[in-house]
């Protein structure tokens, strides 16, 4: 099945009104009674939803159903069909969709069970909770739209200011305590670890600092003699730091180490 390119879409508004949808290049002008989504389109279809509640709302609204009277059986079938299709095309299936399928199935099964006499008032309609959630979600969906519609600073309104050139004032610069900076970094690290797809390596800062120094000096001269990157007074540990910094810069592709002739001196330059 081909995914239809944009060019097949109706060119004008009038045309669009007549055409209900385009499937495989052919315009469909009548609404099918059920909602069938070809697998190729499913991914895009689902990406436009914010989750199972959103999808369910769409399904219910699309069929012009009164939410207070959800025909659980048909909705469940349709919903479960999508879940199955998602699995078929090996879409990464969010757990929330599966939970919703389970909820629907449970409601359906409870509706099928005969109720013992006399308990009707005590036992709630199993749909009540779902309806409450859908209604609650819908309120916030509307609220989100309304919020976006408010005039927003820097999008719809812009603050007006005038220059102050002739006015001489020392504007104090914001001060930052070292502790604030460390706290900020600690929080970054915590988050990064939770997410965990990048490893923040534990190199000593001296290497990072040296890397900056080397790049700095290369920025001015362009090319530097390898041995000039080592300072005798720093002793052995200084040399190790410098060497690690050079290796790290090489690894990150930031510098090249070149030798113009065999046995001649090494030179370091910006890659």
């Amino acid at each position, binding site marked *: 099945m081909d995914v239809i390119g944009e060019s097949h879409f109706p060119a004008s508004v009038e045309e669009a009104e007549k055409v209900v949808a385009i499937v495989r290049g052919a315009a469909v002008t009548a609404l099918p009674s059920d909602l069938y989504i070809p697998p*190729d389109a499913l991914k895009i279809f689902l990406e436009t939803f914010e989750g199972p509640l959103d999808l369910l709302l769409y399904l219910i609204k699309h069929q012009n159903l009164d939410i207070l009277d959800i025909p659980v059986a048909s909705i469940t079938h349709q919903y479960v069909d999508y879940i199955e299709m998602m699995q078929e095309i090996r879409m990464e299936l969010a757990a929330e969709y599966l939970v919703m399928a389970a909820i629907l199935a449970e409601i359906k099964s409870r509706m099928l069970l005969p109720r013992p006499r006399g308990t009707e008032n005590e036992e709630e309609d199993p749909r009540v909770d779902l309806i409450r959630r859908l209604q609650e979600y819908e309120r916030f969906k509307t609220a989100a739209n309304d919020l976006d519609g408010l005039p927003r600073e820097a999008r*719809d309104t812009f*603050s007006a200011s005038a220059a102050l050139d002739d006015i001489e004032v020392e504007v104090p610069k914001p001060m930052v305590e070292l502790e604030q900076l460390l706290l900020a970094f600690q929080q970054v690290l915590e988050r990064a670890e939770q997410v965990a797809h990048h490893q923040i390596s534990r190199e000593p800062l001296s290497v990072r600092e040296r890397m900056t120094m080397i790049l700095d000096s290369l920025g001015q001269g362009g090319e530097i003699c390898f041995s000039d990157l080592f300072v005798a007074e720093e002793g052995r540990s200084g040399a190790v730091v410098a060497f690690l910094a050079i290796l790290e810069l090489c690894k990150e592709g930031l510098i090249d180490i070149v030798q113009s002739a065999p046995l001649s001196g090494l030179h370091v330059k910006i890659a």
Partner: protein
Amino acid sequence: MSKSHREFRGGLVDSKTILEALLFSADRPLSVANLQSCFADSARPEKGEIRAALKALSADYEDRSLELTEVASGFRFQVRQEYSLWVAKLLEDKPPRYSRALLETLAIIVYRQPATRGTIEEIRGVSVSSTIIRTLLDRGWIKVVGHKEVPGRPALFATTRQFLDDFNLRTLDSLPSLSEIQAMGFESDSDTEQALERVPLQGLELAEESEETNDNI
């Protein structure tokens, strides 16, 4: 106040024009107290005087492209919405367009504050992405106001004054109230449908295209 009456060319330095100068020099909204504190002790106008001067100032700009508005943290001059089309062309970074997920999260925090992630997840039915929370914190629209005393001590989020300022609101009360629970029927769901327009689906209605272009300018 008489001390501050000085003349320049045809103009007169009085509290109204001083307030004008202050409001245009600040890069944030200024409250009446902020404005008062810029006057020398001996010549400090009363709050009432400041308010009267602001009112007169506001009237001066009635026919101009700027307006004096009051938001949560005070007063500011801003370019009227009618001019955003032209001003947008000046901007280096286009104003970001926020995702539905982010706006829904924000809406829940606005109307349910203080709210935990749990509240947001319960209402939206999906887990909250950390990126969304981070973006909202970065934007200065929400802040952590405490922690709920339940296992895990989840953070409680609330909106900030910056949020009100950025949405041109004076108080949370000036937001439209959360819609009543409605029997959900037939209204078209233009957001979803617009997104679905491009999807070749059997049985999916194409949204009626409105000739309005999106407002992300």
